């Protein structure tokens, strides 16, 4: 391979593909006499991927090394992401609606097409994730391929640059030395005052500043790669917990996802709204058309830790950890977990109260309250009166066979089959009691159950979340920001000054902000009596 390397006239051996000698800056490609400005991108160093093409590994590598490919990946991601917002994603359609029909019903043929193409779950699709993976690979490969040679050539650059290199910079000027021309040491000082690092060799100068800004892109790419790794880590076991926890007031529940260790108790759910007559907000609330605007959702929670070994099914041995009002934006945090207030249900049925009445006299012979989550078998009303619960259906309906049954265990529509025992009916009379229903399936009764009232409780909808990837995402984000700022807010500037007989040559280069460089050169040249260099790009026009 070594025979393909390029030996410059200064004696330096450059890697194959180099456009500008790493040491002296002599252009190695094209016509040396050309007046065209040099392409200074990556210092004209040999980007490795362009130079070897043999194995399949190299071919894959070279593909992802291309900035063009990288830009295409960005564009594809951009377009795909935008498409995903045309109609709502599956996770944002109303709960319990069937996506197979929802999109067609809501958005017609286009909606159907959207669904058929799988765009309703676009961001979780294999091809979207593959695009992100390709972006990650492109970031790694392209950065490595450019950083290494760029680092090499900036490290190796020498004070004295080839004449042709200097002539072909955007800013280039020749000053004939006269009595106004400052001494070399004064020029050096002027440059140092502008915070340049100045090197001297044989009466020639090389001034450079902010080289670190050239590393900005690579630093921010590292940040992005870390961020993507963080996103990937989520799929590893134990890194991520996302559970929903519905907690009734007064209840203590095991916190799902905490591996048995923690329990949460709700001391109450609070919903506060803004005062509709509040001077400040009156107009806005009226305009919104809502009956009220929520001010606070809060669950007064108590966190417990389960101590010691415990066999499933047995009562936990709880130790109080802390009390914390969980509000939106103020989750309860402990041991890497966070519990968020996300939803609520107001006035869920908790218990029902009845009286047992004598139909004829209309008098009540006793009352009872049935806990809808744990009804008792029998309620003694004294004096020989008793109510037996024969069957209980928390969420009552008739099934296909016409039998009473329950849809779920939540008391949304509680119904009872009760046996009312009285001195006149020692075997009891059977009544079917449900909300707004009172049937006597086995014939006319002498007694009836009269509904009195219900007791309700609020239920908090909480989310239990653990995300062990946050720290790496945070570091990735921070490094990205450092990288972008480093690359964007500083500019790498270089000035070469070369004595050639009775002339002083000056050329200069920056990776961006030529205006800033120009102003700096104006200041330096006016101080030192040098000729302000010409903008050779402008002259061409």
């Amino acid at each position, binding site marked *: 391979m070594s025979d393909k390397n390029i030996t410059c006239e200064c004696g330096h051996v450059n890697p194959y593909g180099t456009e500008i000698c790493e040491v002296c800056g002599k252009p190695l490609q094209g016509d040396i006499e050309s007046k065209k400005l040099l392409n200074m*991108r990556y210092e004209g160093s040999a980007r490795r991927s362009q130079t070897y093409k043999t194995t399949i590994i190299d071919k894959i590598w070279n593909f992802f090394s291309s*900035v*063009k490919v*990288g*830009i295409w990946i*960005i*564009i594809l*991601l*951009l377009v795909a*992401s*935008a498409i*995903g*917002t045309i109609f*709502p*994603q599956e*996770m*944002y359609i109303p709960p319990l609606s069937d996506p197979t029909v929802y999109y067609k019903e*809501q*958005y*017609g043929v*286009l909606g159907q097409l959207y669904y058929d193409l799988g765009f309703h779950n676009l*961001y979780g699709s294999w091809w979207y994730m593959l695009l992100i993976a390709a972006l990650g690979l492109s970031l790694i490969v392209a950065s490595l391929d450019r950083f290494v040679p760029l680092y090499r050539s900036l490290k190796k650059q020498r004070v004295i640059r080839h004449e042709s290199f200097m002539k072909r910079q955007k800013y280039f000027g020749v000053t004939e030395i006269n009595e106004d021309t400052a001494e070399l040491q004064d020029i050096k000082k002027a440059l140092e005052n502008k915070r340049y690092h100045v090197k001297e060799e044989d009466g020639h100068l090389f001034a450079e500043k902010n080289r670190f800004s050239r590393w900005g892109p690579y630093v921010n790419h590292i940040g992005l790669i870390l961020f993507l790794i963080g996103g990937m880590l989520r799929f590893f076991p134990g890194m991520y917990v*996302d559970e929903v926890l519905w907690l009734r007031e007064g209840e203590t529940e095991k916190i799902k996802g905490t591996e048995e260790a923690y329990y949460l108790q709700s001391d109450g759910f609070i919903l506060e709204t*803004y005062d509709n007559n*509040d001077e*400040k*907000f009156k*107009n*806005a*609330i009226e*305009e*919104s058309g809502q009956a009220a*605007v*929520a*001010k*606070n959702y809060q669950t007064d929670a108590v966190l417990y830790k389960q101590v010691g070994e415990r066999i499933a099914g047995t009562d936990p041995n709880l130790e109080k950890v802390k009390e914390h009002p969980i*509000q*939106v*934006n103020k*989750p309860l945090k402990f041991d890497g977990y966070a519990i*968020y207030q*996300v939803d609520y249900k107001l006035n869920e049925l908790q218990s029902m109260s009845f009286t047992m009445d004598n139909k004829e006299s209309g008098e009540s012979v006793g009352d009872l309250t049935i806990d809808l989550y744990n009804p008792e078998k029998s309620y003694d009303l004294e004096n020989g009166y008793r109510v037996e619960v024969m069957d209980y259906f928390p969420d009552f309906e008739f099934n296909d066979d016409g039998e009473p049954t329950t849809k779920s265990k939540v008391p949304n529509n509680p119904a009872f089959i009760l046996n009312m025992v009285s001195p006149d009916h020692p075997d009891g009379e059977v009544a079917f009691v449900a909300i707004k229903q009172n049937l006597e399936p086995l014939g006319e009764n002498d007694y009836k159950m009269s509904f009195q009232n219900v007791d309700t409780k609020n239920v908090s909808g909480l*989310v239990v*979340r653990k*995300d062990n990837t*946050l720290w790496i*995402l945070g570091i990735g*984000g921070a490094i*990205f*920001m450092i990288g*972008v*700022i480093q690359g*964007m*807010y500083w500019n790498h500037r270089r000035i070469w000054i070369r004595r050639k007989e009775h002339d002083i040559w000056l050329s200069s280069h920056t990776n*961006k*902000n*030529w*205006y800033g460089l120009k102003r700096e050169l104006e200041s330096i040249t006016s101080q030192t009596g040098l000729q302000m260099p010409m903008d050779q*790009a*402008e002259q061409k026009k």
Partner: protein
Amino acid sequence: MAQLSSNLLYVAFFIYFAASIIFAISLFGRKWRKSDEETHAKKWGMWGFALSTIGFLFQLSYFITRWIAAGHAPVSNLFEFTTFFGMAMVFAFLIIYLIYRSNVIGVFAMPVAIIVIAYASVFPSDIQPLIPALQSNWLKIHVTTAALGEGILSISFAAGLVYLVKTVNQSKASKSTFWLEFVMYSLISTIAFVVLSLGFEAAGYSSTYQFVDQNEQQVTVDYTLPALAGPNDGEYVSGNEFGPLFEAPGWMKGEKAAHKLNTLIWSMVGGLVFYALIRLILRKRIGAAIQPALKNVNEELVDEIQYRAVAIGFPVFTLGALIFAMIWAQAAWTRFWGWDPKEVWALVTFLFYAAYLHLRLSRGWQGEKSAWLAVVGFVIIMLNLVVVNLVISGLHSYA
């Protein structure tokens, strides 16, 4: 306090207007002034800058007084956000002006900022109470930083526009001249939209229709512009008895879909009328009419300003619209990222400017190509502000 605040905003608005005119004089006025070009430009440019600064200070006072009046940072609804975005644009312009002293950027940037602020005025400006999710310090940190980033990026649009007006060959019609005119038309349509909205509102126009929405619910919708496009199967209820001339297609069933369509049609038609009038008066393309005034503009400097604005704005935007947004989302919505449309469009904007930077730095897209990209970037930012808020509704409470 709230009254004082909105008065301050009016004052700021008119000062911006004056500043734009001054900047225009600094450029166009060269022909009729006797003084030599450089001193003329310098003098009027300085006045333009001074006025812009004063206007900015007035708007800043609006912002502060409204904050005091509301008890929370006034960046919590569309009106507040859009005015703040306009203010951020002016602020970004002031910074760029301090660096580059370019009057021509002011000629384009200030009117764009004015249009943005005028656009804000069509939204209800009542002070709103904050729903629980918005009660966070991250609200102000995230929104202000994001808006500032977008404001700086918008300066890149203004510079790109200058570049295009200056360099696009106006001697014959081409794709470039068409799209340049299209950009002009879009800006004019926004003005038309604002003028029509405020005009009909001042005239007290309102008519109410009733229709069945996607949830099979009977709902009513108030039209503040005469109904060209009525709700699908809608029924007139009360108010002014004009139209509708036709009904919105059946699949547009969202609560406000037909209303939004109606507004869009009015803006487009109104913009077309305004545009046609201007063309009739000028008897040439708007771009061609402005071009001679930019004869002395250094296009390379304008190109650099355009790039510099992206270089400064991109990190600010990323920090505000993605990083701070994620920190807040983690606290308010339990996850730092949830593919909410607004989040996605922030990502789209980020990706677009990332592509812009790679095209410019690695593939040498400068000058005209880069200027067109800056225009597209601004279109994306505007899409995020207008379409995503008004058409695609999500968690962001601005709809």
